């Protein structure tokens, strides 16, 4: 990277002070995208002209003495399952490969209204279904720290883009860990807000009771800055919450004295790679040295998170993805004379969806079908309630619950693609926050012997992202792990 500032806060301040123009910042980040995309494949679409025009508009507003927004001139990358008006949005699926949304997702509209500059749309697992970004119709993303490794998924392109310096902020979506696990694999910060904290309007739906949009950044402060812009009630999303939105940047006191950190030791000790467990224990010790209190907690139902998650999310996916019918938008098969409407539906969907998406639609259709609903879907929804009680009990004695984000460092490309169940098991520590709706953050907590990033996950009380960001910021100040990969 050049000598230009490279956090969102520093860019925003430098643009506002006239030390650098928004166009210069934008061009430097676009150059970085062009330089890294051949090796990383982090972007499905780069919108250089649109970005430079938006940056020029910020510079013009500053020259005219207008008030600038809280992200004025800050480049952002948007996961390609979030609608951008007039800019292709594919969900990394062949079924949407030419889809141009006629409207903006609320989060992208809010970012642009705050002066942020959209540089492009990031690669992801198809419809956000995956844990390695290998389920993309546009090819896998590579990890900027080691090109033979996955960046994680499903928001792998967003994570790689931030770690490689293509943008200080990317938006991701998280249904079972899709912000936090790639943040962990790429050595950056990723926050899944409380369910309902951020509008889902314009997010291409995967599992509506679990999906949540959130920031991926290199610092906790930039995550807080982004949350200030994207959080809050939206009348276009009936599940968005009217809860008051605090100034998240005001929470960053640098102090964790008195913070009670819960560690579910029995859950965390099982099936975790040694380097991850060592990094986790060091991170807990660092928080303790900084004044936090460490408390043992139990989450007896957490080991059931994976089966519960894959029953619930596939059921919802099978319903949500029924909309891809080749009528109003999306891929339609080439019809022969005499082909029926039924054939059009079935063949278009078979051609348009990739293997993992079909697998999940099939599984979800099965668990919702007559005779199986009670044994699978209803049972899973009941265990979800038990899991919620586990967390309620834990939060009686602690303020945050700490776990590794992923049981392993980033794994090798192709390592798990033939065995979907092995891929699903990598989500063991992330799915429960989605199942119960709680906010959770992944922050960098070191590297293994191969210099592969490891992440620490903190889960907080309902609507208490502020405490997560405060702890993340304090830990970051105490450790200063590098977050910019030199691709």
């Amino acid at each position, binding site marked *: 990277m050049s000598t230009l500032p490279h956090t969102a806060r520093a860019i925003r301040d430098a643009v506002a002070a006239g030390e650098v123009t928004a166009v210069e910042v934008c061009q430097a980040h676009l150059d970085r995208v062009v330089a890294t995309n051949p090796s990383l494949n982090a972007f499905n679409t780069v919108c250089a002209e649109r970005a430079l025009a938006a940056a020029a508009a910020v510079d013009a507003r500053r020259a005219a003495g207008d008030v600038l927004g809280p992200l004025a001139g800050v480049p952002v990358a948007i996961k390609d399952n979030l609608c951008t008006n007039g800019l292709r949005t594919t969900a990394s699926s062949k079924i949407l490969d030419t889809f141009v949304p006629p409207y903006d997702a609320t989060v992208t509209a809010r970012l642009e209204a705050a002066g942020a500059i959209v540089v492009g749309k990031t690669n992801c697992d198809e419809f956000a279904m995956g844990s390695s970004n290998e389920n993309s119709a546009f090819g896998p993303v590579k990890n900027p720290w080691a090109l033979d490794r996955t960046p994680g998924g499903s928001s792998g392109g967003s994570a790689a883009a931030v770690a490689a310096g293509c943008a200080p902020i990317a938006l991701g979506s998280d249904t079972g860990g899709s912000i936090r696990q790639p943040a962990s694999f790429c050595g950056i910060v990723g926050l899944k807000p409380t369910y309902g904290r951020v509008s889902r309007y314009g997010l291409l739906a995967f599992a509506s009771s679990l999906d949540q949009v959130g920031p991926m950044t290199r610092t906790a402060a930039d995550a807080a800055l982004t949350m200030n812009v994207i959080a809050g009630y939206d009348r276009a999303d009936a599940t968005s919450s009217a809860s008051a939105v605090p100034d998240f940047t005001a929470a960053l006191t640098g102090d964790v004295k008195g913070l009670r950190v819960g560690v579910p030791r029995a859950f965390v000790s099982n099936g975790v790679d040694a380097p991850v467990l060592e990094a986790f224990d060091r991170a807990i010790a660092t928080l303790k040295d900084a004044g936090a209190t460490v408390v043992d907690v139990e989450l007896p139902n957490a080991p059931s998170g994976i089966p519960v998650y894959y029953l619930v999310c596939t059921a919802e996916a099978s319903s949500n993805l029924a909309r891809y019918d080749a009528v109003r938008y999306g891929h339609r098969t080439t019809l022969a004379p005499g082909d029926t409407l039924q054939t059009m539906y079935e063949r278009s969907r078979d051609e348009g969806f990739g293997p993992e998406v079909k697998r999940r639609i099939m599984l979800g259709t*099965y668990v919702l079908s007559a005779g199986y609903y009670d044994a699978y879907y209803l049972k899973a929804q009941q265990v979800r309630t038990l899991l919620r009680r586990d967390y309620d009990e834990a939060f009686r004695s602690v303020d945050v619950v700490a776990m590794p984000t992923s049981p392993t460092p980033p794994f090798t490309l192709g390592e798990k693609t033939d065995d979907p169940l092995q891929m699903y098991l990598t989500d063991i520590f992330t799915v429960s926050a989605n199942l119960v709706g709680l906010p959770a953050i992944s922050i960098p907590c070191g590297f293994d012997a191969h210099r592969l990033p490891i992440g620490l996950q903190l889960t907080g009380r309902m609507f208490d992202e502020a405490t997560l960001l405060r702890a993340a910021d304090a830990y970051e100040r105490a450790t200063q792990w590098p977050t910019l990969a030199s691709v």
Partner: protein
Amino acid sequence: MSSLSLEDVERIAALARLELTADEKHLFVRQLTDILTYAEQVQRIDTSGIAATAHVHPDQRVEREDEPRPSLGVAAALANAPDADADAGLFKVPRVIG
């Protein structure tokens, strides 16, 4: 233990409106059996008297006045259609009624 047959997979595919190839059907017989067998562990958990989680914020009020609001125009709504008649304002599909 769950064991899906080829006929089960074909029945589900028809419900899901997916025209699977023979290879895909055989792959899904194996993979869906594996996943469901794994998922059956939830059936051992005692959930008697436990309510299902319908929403993580059950107290949230979602009612609001039903007010007309601006919406997409016809041209924008048709712009992404694989086959549309823009003049008539229609999505076109294969003939349904003989």
